[in-house]
């Protein structure tokens, strides 16, 4: 079936098979491989993208369901070759380790900040609750979102005994 959608501000028109999910469509048909597959079952959040303002697990959405939708993926976060404030905060706060959850984590954080520019720590935790990260233990990610929203008092936190 022919579908039309806007991804990261660019319009696409493609044939999509009825059985293909949005994740594979984005990766294989559009060549945007920044979005990752972690489980294929909607549990881990690695494939999170923003669809019409809301985060979705793109592995649970059929490509044909995205007909007419406006989508943001990780590739749409930097503008004009410059990292966004959110990305810069992730970098500055060491919120990235292996990087495989990062795209989804950024999209969940982005959707939160779009709606709620000054989220509390609790609101940040709830926003990224569906995104598994096995490396960081989440703390530096939460700090990055606080930093991006101008709420982090001090970066870092390792104490010398």
């Amino acid at each position, binding site marked *: 079936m022919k579908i039309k959608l806007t991804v990261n501000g660019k319009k696409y028109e493609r044939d999509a098979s009825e*059985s293909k999910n949005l994740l594979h469509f984005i*990766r294989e048909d559009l060549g*945007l*491989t*920044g*979005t*990752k*597959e*972690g*489980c*294929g*079952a909607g*549990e*881990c959040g*690695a494939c999170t993208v923003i669809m019409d303002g809301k985060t979705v697990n793109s592995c649970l959405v059929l490509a044909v369901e995205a007909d007419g939708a406006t989508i943001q*993926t*990780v*590739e749409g*976060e*930097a503008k004009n070759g410059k*990292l966004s404030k959110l*990305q810069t905060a*992730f*970098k*500055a*706060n*060491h919120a*990235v*380790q*292996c*990087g*495989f*959850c*990062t*795209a989804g984590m*950024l999209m969940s954080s982005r959707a939160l900040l779009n709606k709620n520019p000054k989220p509390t720590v609790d609101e*940040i*935790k*709830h926003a*990224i*609750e*569906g*995104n*598994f*990260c*096995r*490396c*960081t*233990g*989440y*703390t*530096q990610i*939460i700090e990055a979102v606080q930093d991006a929203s101008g709420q982090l008092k001090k*970066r*870092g*936190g*390792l*104490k*010398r*005994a």
Partner: protein
Amino acid sequence: MLDTIPSKDLKHIGKPVERDDAIEKLTGQALYTGDLEFAGMLHAKLLRSPYARAKIISIDISKAQKLPGVHAVLTGKDLHYRVGLYLVDKHIMAKHVTRHFGEAVAAVAAETPEIAQKAVDLIKVEYEELTPFLDATKVFDKDVPLVHPDLGRYSYIKEVFTPVPGTNIANHTKLRKGDVEEGFKNADYVFEREYTNPNVQHVPMETHIAIGKWDIGDRITIYTSAQSPFTVRNLFSFSFGISHSNIRVITPYVGGGFGGKAGIGLEPLVCCLSKAAGGRHVKLQATREEEFSLLPCRSGLTYRIKTGVMKNGKILAQKMTMFWDAGAYADYAVNVTRASGFSASGPYEIENAWVDAYSVYTNKPFGTAYRGFGHVEFSWGVERQMNYIADRLSIDPFEFRKINAIKPGSKTMTGEVITDHSGNVTKCMETVAKAINYGKLTATEKARELKTGMKIGKSVVALHKAPAMPSMTGTVVILKLNEDASVTVNHALTEIGMGTYTSLRQIIAEVLRWPVERIKIPIENDTDRDPYDWQTVASKGLLLSGNAAILAAQDLLDKCYDIAAQALRAMKCDLDHDAEKVFVRHKHESFITFKQMSVGYAYPNGNAICGPVVAIGRYIAQGLTNLDKENSQGYPAIDWTFGAHGVITEVNPKTGAFNVIKVASAYDVGRVINEESVRGQAIGGMIQGLGTAMCEGYIYNKDGKLLNPSFTDNKIPTALDLPEEIECFAVETPQVDGPFGARGVGEHSMIAVCGGVGNAIEKAVGADLTHMPIRAEDVWKALQKKLKPVKAKKK
């Protein structure tokens, strides 16, 4: 190395330098193996065993072969190679018999994943189900089924391991120190208990994936998500009898490992499929379910500890028996047995020690390395045992730990003498005790108890670990000076997320006195291009690679000084340098820049000398020995990293539901190289430890079928599971042979978390826990049979 320089004199070391790979990862530009495409690439899918142990009577692949788009169908029958890390016991796919639920039985390579799956569905297998062997503690029972009846014919590393043919014992590690029976005789009290852990999955966010291409002429190219390209190459070469030089292994960005991607995984299978398909690239990505049951997990452990102790709290003797549930293949499990065997007492000195550690083959998914390499599992038993004994001696458990803690002059279980430079576990414990106000409840905590009806408990636990690695583990760092006086580094420690590459950049920049921005270490590794490194495991990367980096940077300066001495007609001893140039110390206007000498220096008339600058640093672990196989005495440890956690929990005394309020952790890292990397490892590992402590673990039915191979039924911690407060401390007792005094801390943060939680729960409500993970229902059950206060019984 360079461990005596005061921190205040260091420009880059100790600072939170940002990660060099962050931009690629934050923009989606980083290419992982799954993001790679090649013209004509095929996709593989697998058929897997539904039984824990079964005879394969027949496999009918005829329909699958006929499906359009299918290029290769293979079964175990077609593949005559064995693979194995220390004990060569595994076929590439099940041959004649399946040994665990989820084992690969047949594989298809086709033009799309969908066609491959369709073909897999057309394969018919006839099995005869056999009685599986599932309980590692029954290893000495008579007439149990043998997982590997041919064990006596397998090749293995004889200097280090001891399989017992005719049994299910893949390795038996023996440790004997002092006289344990005499110790028990002289002890005032003897306590014996048993502690258990299930299999646990690593859960890297990126599942295992490999792309293989086996060219006509037997040249092999592999792209893989692996922790060690060189180990993949070495094991591949051994199994297939193909020269190392004809095997090229490339690791693109790797989405986490945690030990699960050490060794060799899907690589042999994709290469065999490629060969069968005429040399096309074949890609195989494990599904999450396959990650749980096809690929390795952490071994389960049943740990029996018998401790003889004096009234004053000094442990005199300890007998430790470990039944490691290694699953169907030995993989790393035999080495986990060895490494955990020699440190099975935790960071406590045991004068008279006896360990029997058995890796036991069972018909379950097989065990491998997992962050902590056995220490997470045995630490659960050790730390619970310490509290159990302390309570019965009416000594505070923290005081009891301090009495027995390893300190300078102590002898480890293998007979190594601990020195002032080995690290300070007592300081770690004292630091976290202070951070959680150990031993009392604050006014706020008392008010919280009143308000919530929950009971608050606190605990301090301690940990230690040394890298478990061959005695001759070595690495190389090569620096290539570029035209603009930047440096590109060739090095094959794999950056699986831990951040060591950034620390290495800091180390190189510090020695060169250059800005960090001029040092680049490409993330991808390639065995055809990079120099050898053994593995990215064991928390040994920072120490070994860091030292190699120092030596390489010093070599670069040395070579640049040689060029400058010649060009400036000066003695080397009179030269000095800054970030831009080498100059004569007593005549600053006489200099040449690093740019001028980068690819060969040319005099004003055009005459050139010296050629492009390439520097090399090689480092190898020194003074380590293979352990005596009869008593495990010897020198296995290049360094020990010690640490401690202070844990505060609150528990509902009626339901057993609990929350972790605070975890404070301290590690003696020798010297902090990158503050935020240390903190990232500290918190990340601690939360992974909380997962192990609170919710993760394999559940099988009575036939050995894995019941929870998914995130639906096998949760890992999310952001909502974080303790309310997390504090991290670095203790810095320099490691004399560590780079700037540093030692590794990648695995340690995960160790002892479970014991800390269990002990804090017991302190709060008296629930005596011996099995992890600890779920609310486990606490509730323990509360139902709450032990009446038992006085220590004199023998």
